[in-house]
């Protein structure tokens, strides 16, 4: 389908596709098996300018937005849904600065992030605060010109590898969600350490770690937005980033289908290729249809975001929900079409199924997405 991309968007897509094919695909299995962070690919992505595609030109980016980020994430995820996260999770960690940063904060942090000289990470989740983001127990206590951070963040993508962290902490625990604030914390700040690296089911090339803050002193200039606005920062960030997760899911699904179409044309049973069986053909057709529907939905959402639309929570949630559920179903069916071979780690397809699963869980579980969609739906109707 022709989505009438601009010339620049086509360049981004083609460049990401070339990197995915020539540089990521050959090493995806290695990084999945070893679970190490793909710094050599990050270097390539950085030299290719892809880290700046959603950042304004005056901060060193190329001036695109959500649509550009979605296109690149999709292409990279076709080759590896874990490696693509180095870029996508940096965007997640950068959005709070783009959305709520002061001019000084933007000038200080965005140029290095746009060049890919530094990676970013967003830290909200804790052991007791996942979907219930208001239950954040990490505290930020103001002392003169500083805030003192204490607490532990959990399952932070790019954790340990990133240099710049946007961290949600509570300045007033009695106020719940209204007592939260978002801070920029740099790696190397005394009192900021990393916990264990998680051993994950999928997206294993991506680093997931605990962030541990022990009397970590940060200057008050590192507050993003206002005290009490932390929850809003998180929600607005997710509104921007959910199409990114959706495009990661989309890329994983498309990558899996591409491999599957190749396989069914080769695999012979009963004297013919299994692609000649109608039962197999129908599965392929259903997968292609669902993938295209997700793509159309994601692109439409990204374009809406880039138009400056304000009410985006529902549509952003719809895109994330649909694309991630689609990716789980498609990759499961792809493994099915590979049969016994598909279940074996010698074949690349089972990785896609493992990588797809996380997209239903993180940046808001799909149950939370449904809640967001439903509450917006009901609010709209009650006006």
């Amino acid at each position, binding site marked *: 389908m022709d989505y009438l991309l601009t*010339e*620049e968007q086509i*360049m*981004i897509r083609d*460049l990401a596709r*070339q*990197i995915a094919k*020539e*540089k990521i695909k050959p090493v995806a299995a290695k990084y999945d098996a070893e679970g190490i962070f793909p710094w050599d690919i990050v270097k*390539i992505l950085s*030299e*290719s*300018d*892809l880290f*700046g*595609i959603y950042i304004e030109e005056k901060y060193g980016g*190329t001036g695109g937005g959500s649509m550009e980020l979605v296109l690149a994430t999709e292409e990279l995820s076709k080759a590896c849904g874990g490696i693509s996260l180095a870029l996508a999770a940096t965007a997640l960690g950068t959005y709070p600065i783009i959305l709520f940063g002061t001019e000084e904060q933007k000038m200080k942090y965005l140029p290095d992030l746009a060049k890919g000289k530094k990676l970013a990470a967003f830290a909200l989740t804790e052991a007791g605060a996942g979907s219930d983001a208001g239950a954040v127990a990490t505290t930020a206590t103001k002392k003169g010109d500083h805030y003192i951070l204490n607490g532990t963040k959990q399952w932070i993508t790019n954790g340990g590898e990133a240099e710049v962290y946007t961290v949600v902490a509570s300045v007033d625990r009695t106020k719940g969600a209204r007592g939260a604030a978002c801070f920029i914390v740099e790696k190397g700040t005394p009192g900021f350490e990393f916990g264990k690296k998680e051993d994950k089911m999928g997206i294993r090339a991506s680093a997931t770690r605990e962030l541990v803050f022990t009397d970590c002193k940060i200057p008050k200039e590192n507050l993003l937005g206002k005290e009490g606005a932390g929850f809003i920062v998180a929600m607005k960030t997710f509104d921007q980033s959910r199409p990114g997760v959706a495009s990661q899911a989309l890329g994983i699904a498309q990558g899996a289908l591409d491999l599957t179409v190749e396989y069914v044309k080769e695999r012979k049973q009963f004297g013919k290729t299994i692609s000649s069986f109608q039962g197999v053909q129908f599965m392929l057709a259903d997968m292609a249809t669902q993938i295209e529907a997700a793509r159309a939905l994601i692109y439409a959402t990204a374009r809406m975001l880039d138009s400056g639309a304000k009410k985006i929570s529902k549509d952003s949630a719809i895109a994330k929900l649909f694309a991630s559920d689609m990716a789980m179903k498609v990759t499961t069916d792809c493994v099915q079409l590979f049969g016994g071979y598909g279940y074996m780690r010698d074949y690349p397809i089972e990785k896609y199924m493992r990588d797809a699963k996380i997209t239903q869980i993180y940046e808001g579980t799909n149950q939370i997405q449904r809640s967001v969609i439903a509450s917006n739906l009901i609010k709209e109707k009650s006006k």
Partner: protein
Amino acid sequence: MNIIVCIKQVPDTTEVRIDPETNTLIRSGVACIVNPFDMYAVEEAIRLKEKFGGKVTVITMGPPQAEEALRETISLGADEAVLISDRAFAGSDTWATSYTLSGAIRTLGDYDVIICGKQAIDGDTAQVGPGISAHLDIPQITYVKKIEEVDMEKKYMRAERMTEEGYEIVESPLPCLITVVKEINEPRLPSLKGKMRAKKAEIKKIGAKDMDLDPGLLGLNGSPTKVVKIFTPAPREKGQVIEGDPKEISEKLVELLKSDIL
């Protein structure tokens, strides 16, 4: 350091088809790429520029659509590109091509190094690079796998070149021409900003009248090579496999060697 890189646009296939009537390559319906060996030349030129400063100028002789190949090299970091195109060049063999390219290089001003890929994947002659150096009367180092040293003060270069038996280390005064093999580097991918620059870049075009060349030495008329016949050789037949344990195999082999079969 001023570096000139000569590239060629070639069909993107390893199975080049040949028109049996005209004995020339069939180009229609085949996507075009920059000759892969030339990509190593472009990369090496950009690395030299990054080290010594200066300018990388990429040139190609070809039809108007070869401009795309030049733009690709700009997206990688080349500064300028020149398309040498004229109906008068049609049908050039390696002699006429290198004569024309040398004429174009003379119009570009001073240079320190000319870099070419070792050969093009379509014609596979490996003659154009050395031809240019002969026409320009400058030294050449072919099959370079490593530039060991460049001294811009004393104006010389030392390079390692591959030979069938091993390698040789050759020193040459500058300016000189080198042709490179794929072992020399790993070409980079383009950057987004490079692609944007490439799209907008102005490609200089020069034709036969812009150069001081003898018209009789251009194109088909200036080409001493006459292709009599080009054909695809029949695939080699499967050899005879001798099976058994080592003793049996050696006995059978000796028998065969003694017989008339071999």
